[in-house]
């Protein structure tokens, strides 16, 4: 057995969290190796260590049985680690060929560029991927799938022995994904080791030879052939015991007279972002889950509901009344509708501002007095009880949110909606990058909110979380709702059900 890449005992800690705690990984030459795990399991940290973005606190990395130290991404690529990130790293106005051989352009200063040579090289690598494109086209004119292929070509042009792909199919159609898989199999047969990070178990089963499962910053399984696992076993390894904790959860939601009119209702809604014919309803006190793969259009739907993007047809009803929400301001203040963003640092909180400023932002307009005057103490008396209840740990209410842990930041992000007392709350990926304890706490909080009558639309890619919290689960794919599942909290059954339904649609 020849290992192209071997990691042993990798430990990586950030201030306040241990992201990886003794992780090992072994990728064989000429194999496609899946790296899977839930959100927050440590996959992306591990990838960043393999590609030289982060440095491990402990542990060794070996490439071709040689110990290597990556001080930066360049060092990793010199050792033969090629990577294709989830976001594109291309120069938009440059040609395909120039992007493929960008490293050569970086290496010289004044020697005039021979474009014929560059185009020849670019074509050669594209041909290896069986791609028929004019290499002189600017990459800004390519589709997402083509642009990704250009990045794979670039990684190969660096004589990569290991090719790391982070969620490569996230933004591809199933047809494009198939084409990608053909290329990956070919590369494997040529001896390249491929490390693939993915959420999609079905594509892993059809594509990969080996697998490593991470959970909570540790190996849930050591690296080994995929043949030993069926899907249920993989899911068990990913989810582990935590799920049992969560299952203690929620007593089912029952429809009563008081909630017979849905708090939020979409009827045949299409949006400018491409959603078609979306119909759903959320009653008071109900948690409706919206599950789907990355890129299915869930966050985009949430942002359309709160007025960030226009709804082009169909009807949006709040408490039975048809409404048109022009911007987030009226969503919050007229229709009592709030949105907890998945992108906490960029959209959920204002990092440089204080806890107080963040938690009170939704009620400033309501609390202001004559001449719009508004004092800190007035805001404090309104939000402090909430911050206490949420047990937000900060040096003071005036400390910048930047200095809080991820979990406490998330509590602040939710606190502002509690302060505003919204009746409808859309929660997007509430527990990404949050430690287990806070996660359990947040789940309890979401359930309590529902029990108190808030209508909750929950978006999550975390299947156990979804099963633990939601009363009903809607499946979204390609900007459409494809299915609805009544959640009876039997995880094994529901997860298999969801997977089979999403797969069924995929092969339509």
């Amino acid at each position: 057995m020849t290992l192209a890449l071997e990691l042993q005992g990798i430990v990586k800690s950030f201030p306040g969290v241990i992201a990886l705690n003794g992780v090992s990984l072994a990728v064989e030459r000429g194999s496609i190796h899946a790296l899977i795990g839930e959100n927050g399991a440590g996959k992306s940290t591990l990838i960043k260590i393999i590609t030289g973005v982060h440095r491990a606190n402990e542990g060794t990395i070996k490439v071709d049985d040689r110990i290597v130290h990556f001080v930066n991404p360049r060092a990793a690529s010199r050792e033969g680690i090629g990577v294709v990130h989830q976001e594109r790293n291309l120069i938009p106005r440059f040609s395909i060929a120039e992007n493929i051989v960008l490293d050569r352009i970086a290496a010289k200063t004044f020697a005039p560029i021979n474009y014929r040579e560059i185009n020849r090289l670019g074509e050669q690598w594209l041909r290896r991927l069986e791609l028929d494109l004019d290499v002189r086209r600017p990459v800004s004119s390519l589709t997402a799938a083509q642009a990704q292929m250009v990045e794979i070509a670039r990684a190969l042009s660096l004589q990569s022995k290991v090719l790391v792909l982070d969620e490569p199919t996230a933004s591809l159609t199933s047809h494009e994904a198939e084409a990608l898989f053909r290329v990956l199999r070919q590369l494997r047969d040529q001896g390249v080791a491929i490390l693939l990070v993915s959420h999609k178990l079905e594509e892993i089963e059809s594509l990969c030879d080996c697998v490593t499962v991470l959970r909570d910053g540790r190996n849930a399984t050591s690296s080994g052939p995929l043949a030993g696992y069926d899907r249920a076993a993989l899911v068990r390894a990913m989810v582990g015991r935590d799920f049992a904790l969560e299952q203690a959860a929620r007593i089912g939601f029952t429809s009563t007279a008081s909630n017979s009119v849905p708090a939020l209702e979409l009827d045949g809604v299409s949006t400018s972002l491409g959603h078609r014919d979306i119909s759903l309803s959320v009653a008071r006190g109900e948690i409706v889950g919206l599950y789907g793969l990355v890129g299915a259009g869930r966050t985009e739907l949430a942002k359309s509901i709160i007025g960030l993007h226009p709804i082009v047809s169909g009807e949006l009803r709040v408490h039975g009344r048809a409404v048109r929400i022009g911007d987030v301001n009226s969503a919050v203040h007229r229709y009592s509708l709030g949105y907890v963003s998945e992108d906490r640092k960029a959209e959920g909180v204002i990092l440089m501002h204080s806890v107080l400023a963040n938690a009170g932002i939704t009620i400033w307009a309501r609390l202001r007095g004559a001449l719009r005057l508004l004092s800190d103490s007035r805001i404090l008396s309104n939000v402090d009880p909430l911050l206490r209840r949420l047990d937000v740990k900060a040096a003071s209410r005036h400390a910048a949110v930047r200095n809080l842990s991820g979990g406490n930041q998330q509590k602040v992000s939710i606190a502002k909606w509690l302060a505003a007392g919204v009746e409808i709350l859309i929660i997007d990926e509430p527990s990404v990058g949050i430690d287990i304890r806070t996660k359990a706490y947040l789940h309890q909080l979401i359930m309590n909110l529902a029990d108190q009558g808030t209508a909750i639309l929950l978006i999550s890619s975390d299947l156990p979380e979804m099963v633990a919290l939601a009363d009903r689960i809607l499946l979204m794919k390609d900007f459409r709702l494809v299915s609805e599942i009544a959640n009876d909290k039997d995880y094994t059954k529901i997860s298999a059900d969801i997977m089979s339904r999403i797969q069924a649609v995929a092969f339509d």
Partner: protein
Amino acid sequence: MAKSILRQEWLGLAVIAVLGFVVMATLRPSFLTPFNLFVLMSTFALATLIALGQMVTLAVGQLNLSLGSVGGLVAVSFAGLMDVWHWSAAPSLMAGLALGALAGALNGILIAQFELSAFIVTLATLAMFKGLNLALTKAQPFYHIDRIVSAFGNASIGGPIPAVLIPTVMATAVVAFIFYRLPIGRQILAVGGNSSASELSGISNKRAVITAHVMSGALAGLAGMVAVARLQLGQPTIGEDWLISSFAAPVIGGVALTGGHVSIVGTLLAVVIVALITQGLVLFAVDPFYVQLVLGGLILVAVGLNSLRSLLPIGYSSL
């Protein structure tokens, strides 16, 4: 690069320039007199250098407010070397180019090495170079410049074609060669287009930023010296009115404000259009201060069109 795309970018500008030329020539026959064409092309020569000086900083995704100030400082130094120290034209020219490049290097190093905002750094050096200029000259012009320089400023190289076009043509060729053929030029554009991708591919972003500012300073210096040749004296106020036009031409010419893309042909056409408008106002005896109104309006229209265009999805980069 596909010819069709290139053409699309500046075709509209070319049509406007040609139309403007035809309209002026038919409405005002005096427009086509050799003297008028000579003046027009002299204006074009100077304005092109100024526009290119700003274009190279826009290429890397930054800007240079001190462009005019550097131009003024180099202009008076160039004239002062000849007037006070009696240097001849050639070494003074070399010294001027070096000073411009040095001033640009100072901007670039402060921005890249200390990671400061290009806006604030060049606003500060704008004041510093201006202060140096006035301290050197006591706000008085240097009159006694080398005869070769003053002759050059008035000379024609055949018919209405002014000699001052020579440095402009040479500088344009060099800039074009750097951006389209040399790795360092491509590196500047790569940094402007996607700085994290360029860093990952091993490009030194700092060096690219500094190089762009050095080029900007050298071009500003050259423009200052061309202005000396045209005015026949080292006027300390040279460069004071370059700010708006330096941005107008590249922006109208389709250079991306966010960096990563230059259009040399588009910028040249925009300079032509602006020069035609200025000339037109003179020929039609309109208050020349309308030029400022028109320039400001053109900038707004150009960026407005750009932001409209960016709303139309084309490839992944527009998502």
